[in-house]
């Protein structure tokens, strides 16, 4: 096993690639994503994306906030070689719960996890139930993220990654940016 700090830095690019692929996949092949996660009913990119371009000489970072239309700027950045480093995601589970959260690319940590129209009581009588319920939803979310990341890695290490998947991602970028 590699040293943890070395491994963190060496493979953080795989997290950026994963978020970029996830954006592509949610827009082009939701059926594939649904199959991989089992409990997912819907998923879409919410109103915030952070994109970074790691050039040899400089590092450019842009954060886009707003509705779907404004994500066009992000698509153009991808065409210039940038990758997604943070993604705000909304999803709906088969239990009809709506999760909103930010997924960090380099660590796959989860920030600002929120369940729509849901409040957990911290009154002494209800605290145990609330904790168990909240952790249940957290585990549900981390399982979804783990399955999606593993699905990406399976695609990433496949023989057809360069000849098929990258070609498809580039085509999506061209179509989305109106440059086809």
């Amino acid at each position, binding site marked *: 096993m590699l040293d943890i700090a070395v*491994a963190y830095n060496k493979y953080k690019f795989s997290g950026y*690639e994963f978020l970029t692929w996830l954006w592509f996949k949610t827009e082009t092949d939701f059926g594939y994503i649904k199959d991989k996660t089992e409990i997912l009913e819907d998923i879409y990119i919410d109103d915030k994306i952070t994109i970074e371009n790691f050039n040899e000489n400089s590092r450019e970072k842009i954060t886009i906030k707003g509705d779907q239309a404004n994500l066009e700027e992000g698509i153009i950045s991808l*065409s210039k*070689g940038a990758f997604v480093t943070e993604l705000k995601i909304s999803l709906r589970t088969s239990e009809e719960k709506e999760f909103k959260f930010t997924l960090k690319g380099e660590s796959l*940590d989860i920030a*600002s996890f929120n369940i729509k129209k849901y409040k957990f009581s911290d009154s002494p009588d209800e605290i145990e139930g609330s*904790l168990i319920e909240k952790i249940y939803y957290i585990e549900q979310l981390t399982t979804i993220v783990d399955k999606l990341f593993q699905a990406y*890695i399976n695609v990433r290490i496949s023989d057809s990654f360069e000849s098929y998947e990258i070609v498809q991602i*580039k085509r999506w970028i061209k179509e989305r940016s109106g440059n086809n």
Partner: protein
Amino acid sequence: MSILSSSSSFLKYKIKEDLQANSSTLSIDQIRTSLKKNRFPDIINSETSEMTAGWTTLESPFDPDFETDPLTYGKYIIFSLRMDKKVIPKKIVEKELAIETKKILKEGQRDFISKKEKSTIKEDIILKLSLIIPSTPDIYNVVWIPETGEILFFSLSKAVNEVFENLFRTSFSKPVIRIFPYTKIFFSKNVKDADKDKFYNIKPYTLQD
């Protein structure tokens, strides 16, 4: 408590000794004893401590009783890390430094203070202020999942994560390993060894034509 707030941020750790066993090898009594031994101190040495950290309980973070406060909630063991930090506002230091410098110049009938002398004065001011300014407490929840040997920790701050990792190792003689892309694959039971090797060898690609 951050775990039940409407917006939570968290990361996952794997407990090293539990990587093979896949379950916690410590009893709840041992965990309770270790937490108590490394609890947040009742008295802080305000003269020397810029930061103080220790364990506390979930429901009584500022007045814990490790003998009676609950630690188990269903199948989970939940407690908290308390970190108290001295935050001395920069502007107060600047103000005190200006007053003190003026006083020294006037009393000594001087018109110059060296950089080294100014630095010593500043250190004295910070020490004096640290005795009167109370520490700011922060509480970070910890969820230990014994059946998987995993921990959910409710802070993404690098500094706080380091304090947690060190205190956990000291308290339980077990290091925790943070879960991120590499460790996710390394520890995965659903990825074959041959596929793990392929992952270790991937190189970044570009989407630029």
